[in-house]
């Protein structure tokens, strides 16, 4: 692949959050600038690519989209490790996706309703240390159905110590901004602070996980 890259950096991002919060829709909006209300459920894992420009550098974003249901966590957590940035997505019209007070009826355990805190602790557990995160409240255009206020979103983000943004994939509000801001944070963390020209060493340990991406780029030549 040497010599064929037309980007300066490759950044790998991961979308997580409960099923139906609109992860795939956010990704579709960002990567293809389109929206479809009846998207199919995501099964397994896939990614999309978009190259953006940050401070005059061409940054290629490889954004991985996962199935939301807790049931598939054993599969999806395998992808946490290679991610340099993670978008934790909830649905402002769905309390459960944000904060599930519900306990499991028969065993008392939480099961298929992972809320943001659950996702966050999964990230802490499985992702690379220091990975950048952002909290995303989707469907903010749908005011009449809103159950999670901006304030509560912000409060949780503050508590977790991560940036926060409300977006709407449908109305194209803030989706670009969210991805750009996360990418900028990552660039700041990894690239700008890196004294050497070697980007990947800090970002992803390629050899460690057999599913991580060995095309992770260094500087373009």
């Amino acid at each position, binding site marked *: 692949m040497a*010599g*064929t890259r*037309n980007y300066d950096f490759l950044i790998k991002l991961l979308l997580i959050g409960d099923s139906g919060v609109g992860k795939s829709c956010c990704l579709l909006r960002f990567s*293809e600038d389109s*929206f479809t209300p009846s998207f199919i459920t995501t099964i397994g894992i*896939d990614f999309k690519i*978009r190259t953006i420009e940050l401070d005059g550098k061409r940054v290629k974003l490889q954004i991985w989209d996962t199935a939301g249901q807790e049931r598939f966590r054993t599969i999806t957590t395998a992808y946490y490790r290679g991610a340099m940035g993670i978008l934790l997505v909830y649905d402002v019209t769905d309390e459960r996706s944000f904060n599930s007070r*519900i306990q499991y009826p028969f065993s008392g355990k939480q*099961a298929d309703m992972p809320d943001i805190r659950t996702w966050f602790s999964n990230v802490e557990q499985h992702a690379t240390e220091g990975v950048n995160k952002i909290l995303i409240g989707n469907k903010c255009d749908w005011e009449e159905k809103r159950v999670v206020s901006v304030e509560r979103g912000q409060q949780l983000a503050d508590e977790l110590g991560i940036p926060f943004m409300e977006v709407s994939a449908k109305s194209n509000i803030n989706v670009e901004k969210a991805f750009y801001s996360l990418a900028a944070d990552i660039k700041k963390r990894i690239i700008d602070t890196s004294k050497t020209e070697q980007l990947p060493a800090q970002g992803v340990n390629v050899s460690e996980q057999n599913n*991580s991406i060995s095309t992770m780029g260094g500087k373009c030549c």
Partner: protein
Amino acid sequence: MADSAAKLTPPGSPTASFYDLSDDEEGEYNTIMHSSSGRGVKLLFSKSKRATQVYVHPTSSSKDNIPGFIALIQQKNPSTDARPQTSSSTSSKADRATSYLLAWLPESSLGDAFDSYVKVELSDASSPPKNTPLVPQPPTTTSHTTPIGTYAFAVPVSEIYSLLIRPPSLGWWFGSVVINTRAGNSFPALFFHDNECQSTILQKKKLVRENFDPFGEDGGTFWGGDEILRWLKRYVVVEKSGADPSVYLIEPTVEDKLGFGGKASAPNSPKLGSKIAGPMGIQGPNAASSSSRDAGMDPVTKALKQARWSFLEKMSQVTSFTRRTAQEIVENPKVPPQVRRLMKNPEVQTLQEEFDSARVYLARWAMGIAEQSERERSQRIFTAQDVLEMEDSDVGAFEILDMEASNLSLAEKRKPVSIKEWKSFFDTKVGRLQVTVDEVKERIFLGGLNPSDGVRKEAWLFLLGVYDWDSTADERKAMMNSKRDEFVRLKGAWWERMVDGNGNAEETEWWKEQKGRIEKDVHRTDRQIPLFEGEDIPHPDPDSPFAEVGTNVHLEQMKDMLLTYNEYNRDLGYVQGMSDLLAPIYAVEQDDAVAFWGFVGFMDRMASLERNFLRDQSGMRTQLLTLDHLVQLMDPTLYLHLQSADSTNFFFFFRMLLVWYKREFEWVDVLRLWESLWTDYMSSNFHLFIALAILEKHRDVIMEHLKHFDEVLKYVNELSNTIDLPSTLLRAQALFRRFQRTVEAVDKRNNFPTPTVRQRKPAAKPSSPKPSNSGATSAVDGRRRPDSSAGIDGEEEGKGKDKEKVISPELRQLLSRKVEALDKNGVKDHGGGVGA
């Protein structure tokens, strides 16, 4: 440049020649001025229906559609006005092409000429009218520059590089035509609203009347797009692209033919990620649907993606299928300057990236070429002869299936089972099966069931275990009655608990949560199927997030059935993917109680045998591991490549295995595939051989082009809806036979070992039918993955390279035709659905 006689040379059809020459004899037609424009051109063909047939869809909203006419227009070539000649035989069609314009004109722009367009349209469409009307010359263009505007254009046929023609099909409401120019531009897609089109309706009727064949040249239903091709073929060379069956090349050069010629098809790739804006002409925020209910892309986006795809194909042609990179193309002096210029265009560069990597793209391209030869060989209809030929092909070692069970020939066996044949399997008195179950299963496995005569309704219930194969008609009737009662009881149980609040608050909350989850998924399952498409009744729950969009009775039934399944199998709970498995069964049975029990049967095997939905994902892991072993045994070279690409986790088959290729094949093919798989005729894990068949088909391309996990994953994910089912089934059968023989060979050798010093532990272990857990997890010695080698037979010898081949228990399991159910305790052991 052509002279005027030359450009009127008939394209080979005597009738056409008559019309053209008669026009010529009439004299200088361009001296006859059109009343309003002062300059006329001949209108040869036009198409619309009044104002409704051919549309540009600038947005996805139908109210924005622009009606108009697509027309083939002949103009006098300006450079040859005063040179009447008679010799025409030496002129090429290409020369003539310059004098023809393919135009699209919004109805609103036609003015006085409107009547002429309608008249030409409704004349006998197989040849131009005798008295070709003159119409004002439309402005000629060779590129489409205004993103959204009036859209009128007239392209010289000589400037057209290719036409992207998409016939109407399920989920695509309208057929479409996109014109790609030689300069690399594309015009807006033209959509044929044929149901409103008078000339198409007439043409269809005529075809039926004359030939009893209402189908076009390609066997598809006749539609307006075919007609455009027919018009053009009268005047220029039109050749179907070998790489993409929907691309037609106009006056292709020798190089074009090398790159695109032939009759084969490439995997369509409408799903390749790409932005809508781009060099292809149409853009704007509205191009993507906000109102479309199509689960896939709206037609505009889809057509555009196709257009971009064919554009990239064009670029790839100059690379001669080598792995030359885009950079090399730019620097290659042999590449025409216009292509080089294009490659430097930032838009095009973005486009390239959208294909993720040139490698994935080139891989797809190469596959298209490979498919060409395969298709030509098999020609889609498989006869015994073809099967015999496959024996020599790369699949190799194809065995003629055992034909002694019946007198049917193999070709006969591969025909779908009709309702009549199905009924003949049962005796007429009590309705009990009078042939063996195996015979029935073999027929269904090989031929499938007739998709349209209703045989599935009954047969699926046998295949799904709802009906006992040994039952009489009366027993089945009684059984179904009691099953109906049970369904009502189960449905009532959750209903009471959830709606009436019987049960503790926590439990009620759990049911509500499950209901919300199910609802979200049902509203995004197979909505392109007419049955699930409508939103014609108000939502029963005004608080539902779907209250605004409405619902339909079938969606509501789907939700109830899935909740009822939750009641039936509380240990599992609702898991994403279940709605995908239920939809086809419901669509076939169209009765909620019957479909429910069919679904229960399906879930019994999916949750038990395959264990797809267990919390710990142990079933999925086992299947991926089995696939790993299978590839090691059957195609070690490919396996080593996948290993080098970090891809032996086989995660890219996760979706296929979880919902049995529901997302990979078209709806009709899914039904066909599932009924074959349900028979367990060859193996109860035949779906893994489907996976192997898909992988094998693409093996060369994968090995040649794909070096990393993300590339492999992207490539495999995007095979979705490009896979040909009949050939895949055949390949899977061949692979199974080969697998069977390989296992036999290994067993035989291990039972009768050659007396070598090295084999200190000859017989026994590998052939032992009940392998222990400490047994091999590796299919074949020496290619074992380092992390799975513990406890393999002969391991204690410590000399890895000389161990005998071992068939892993996972692989041996593939020879079984039995579906062994995991009982409910088993489900719980694996985490079930309730996090026990």
